[in-house]
């Protein structure tokens, strides 16, 4: 008798799940704390939904690669990618295109940060003294946390990171990189300058212990990318509308959370330098 009641309960609970209209879905590379991303992209989804008049859903993922794979598999039609992940995604989905980037993304930077125990002074030149320390990147697929810092390490120190440093790690994201340097688990790390600035502003990092020791030259980074077949699925002109909405986005709260001052047009060609760099260090097969 109890068994039957249990069964009924389970079935009743299940009937509550019904599918609605096909939603427009997007994802973002998980470059920092997930709770931040959830709140930010939840707002973006609401914003888009109001203006597109189509259900919009944000699909959270656990890794940069998973974001690209979801895009490739058409599980999401749009994504907020970094420079490298955007290039990778467009290689796999040939007719997809970059729509917009943050104004700051045209001149993005990586900061090298160091724990006080590393004893490296801030400088304008590449800090060669970091050789022999322990070093952490961000995600394996990150532009600011992996590609650009590795490029400069190879260029300035003449060897791949695993030969230059005592230990090399991949923290997974920029929040984690900051936490790892802050705790002294690694002496030196490479971090997205925007995430660093926000962390400092919000007092989440002890700047007595951790400081920026070098800033890379600027390079293009984050951008929105849309699949080429989105118009087929959501009606012609859909891509243009989304692009338009993004470029006109003025919601202070959302822009601040990114954090970007505004979105500006972007094209696939803007990311040629990233593509070349990735080839050079062997992260992207020819």
């Amino acid at each position, binding site marked *: 008798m109890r068994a039957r009641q249990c069964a009924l309960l*389970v079935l009743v609970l299940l009937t509550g799940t019904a599918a609605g209209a096909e939603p427009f879905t997007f994802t973002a590379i998980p470059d920092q704390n997930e709770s931040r991303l959830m709140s930010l992209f939840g707002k973006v989804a609401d914003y888009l939904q109001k203006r597109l008049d189509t259900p919009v859903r944000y699909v959270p993922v656990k890794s940069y690669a998973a974001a690209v794979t979801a895009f490739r598999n058409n599980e999401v039609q749009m994504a907020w990618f970094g420079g490298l992940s955007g290039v990778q995604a467009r290689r796999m989905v040939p007719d997809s295109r970059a729509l917009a980037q943050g104004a700051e993304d045209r001149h993005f930077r990586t900061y090298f940060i160091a724990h006080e125990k590393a004893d490296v002074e801030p400088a304008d030149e590449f800090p060669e003294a970091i050789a022999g320390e322990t070093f952490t990147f961000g995600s394996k697929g990150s532009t600011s946390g992996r590609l650009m810092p590795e490029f400069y390490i190879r260029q300035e120190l003449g060897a791949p990171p695993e030969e230059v440093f005592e230990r090399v790690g991949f923290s997974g994201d920029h929040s984690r990189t900051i936490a790892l340097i802050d705790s002294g688990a690694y002496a030196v790390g490479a971090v997205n300058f925007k995430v660093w600035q926000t962390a400092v502003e919000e007092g989440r990092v002890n700047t007595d212990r951790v400081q920026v020791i070098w800033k890379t030259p600027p390079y293009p980074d984050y951008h929105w990318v849309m699949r080429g077949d989105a118009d087929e699925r959501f009606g012609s002109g859909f891509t243009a509308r989304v692009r338009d909405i993004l470029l006109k986005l003025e919601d202070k709260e959302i822009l601040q959370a990114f954090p970007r001052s505004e979105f500006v047009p972007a094209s696939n060609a803007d990311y040629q330098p990233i593509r070349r760099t990735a080839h050079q260090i062997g992260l992207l097969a020819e």
Partner: protein
Amino acid sequence: MSAVVTTAGHWRRATLLLALAGLVAFALADLSISRGTPGAELQRLAQGLITPDFTATDALGEALATTLAFAFQGVALGAAGGFTLALLWHRPGVRFFAASIRAVHELFWGLIFLQITGLSPLTGVLAIGLPYAGIFAKVFGEFLEEADPKPADALPGGTNPVTTFFTARLPLVWDQFRAYGAYRLECALRAAAILGFIGLPTLGFHMETAFREGGYSQGAALLYIFFALIGTQRLWLHRRLVPVYLLAAVLWAPPLSSGPDGALKRFLTTDIVPAPLRDGGGWAESGTWLAELGTQQALPGVANTLVVALAALLLTGVLALALFPLASPHFGHRPGRALAHLALVMVRTTPEFLLAFVLLIVLGPSMLPGILALALHTGVIVAYLTGRFSESIRPQRGYSQALTRYGYEILPRVYPNFLAFLLYRFEIIIRETAVLGLLGIPTLGFYIDSGFAEFRFDRALVLIIITVMMNLAVDAFSRILRRRLRLQTPATAY
């Protein structure tokens, strides 16, 4: 004086060999605690554990339901597949196939299926169901092999094989099948939770977030819910409810793919084809490619995997020998044992992957957290099994001192079983060690993860195949050693 030939001598030599290998591994391993202040982090963790926050996770119910749904469907698929394979267990090809699919960890299967079936329930179900089919095949196959052949022989001449199987073979082992299925469901719940770490929406998804961001109260709450789910399995896993649960699981998370059409073909004919061949190169280029992959990734990966696994095996043995009296009626008193039992169950329930993840955060990156996690989890399991086995021993003489009793009465009697449990677990330790690479410990999984992160699936696949070969080798080694030492194979240890 004549040469000493004792069974205990054989055990001692085998133990010495393994301990020596473990010590060498410890000498080679990177054991640094690089985190400046592990004490402070540990304190925050402890504080979180005593102040669980059950409200911090949104959509907790959904995550719980999805975890259950993946586990039920995965076990159903695994049992059905394993059952079919078990019917052909006499064929070496089938045994090899089953051994190969179970040598690939659920998380690696998950990463593979993410490419083909996307972030869908099907990925979760297949990631559990496929390796479990291999495990079920082995266990079912062995049950059937050991079952009494006489009833089938006594059937009237001319009875066809299908009828014979269902009337005179299957009923002999049905109860064992059922009990094993229930145990596998517990394992599947762990696996389903862990699949959250690669993005499937199970409990592990939120656990990863919580622990990574230092939300220990939230993490603790998720962990406790998980403990409760597994701890109460006996209460809710009623035989008659299984079909209902399975139906509910299929309705909640229909095992459908969210990958595009042709994703399987794309994966098989493009993604995993070695890059030189794909780009029109020949076998010579492929040879160079393979050699490079071997020296730069496979070799260090295999070496590190062995180092971590052997060190973990030694520590597991030490821990198990120290802890098994807690689960044995020959030592301590009843309330003490009950408490110890609870602690053992909790550590056993915590997946080693999750344990390693948390220890990495607390202690900082090195091999130490991985070794500790593997040894804690496995050590407790072996201690528990050994302690349970010691129940069957009647002490001949009542040594009043606990240590004397331990050394002279109990240990010599449980030792062969302890050794068998340990060797049996070695294969599982290797499997888990490889997968710890996903967390950054440079075992084979680290390079496999890189393959997936850089969309070089061809490399990832070669490395996964190497992982499989390593697993098969360790399995063979452990089997040979068990046979040499004339140890009974305890099926419950799997």
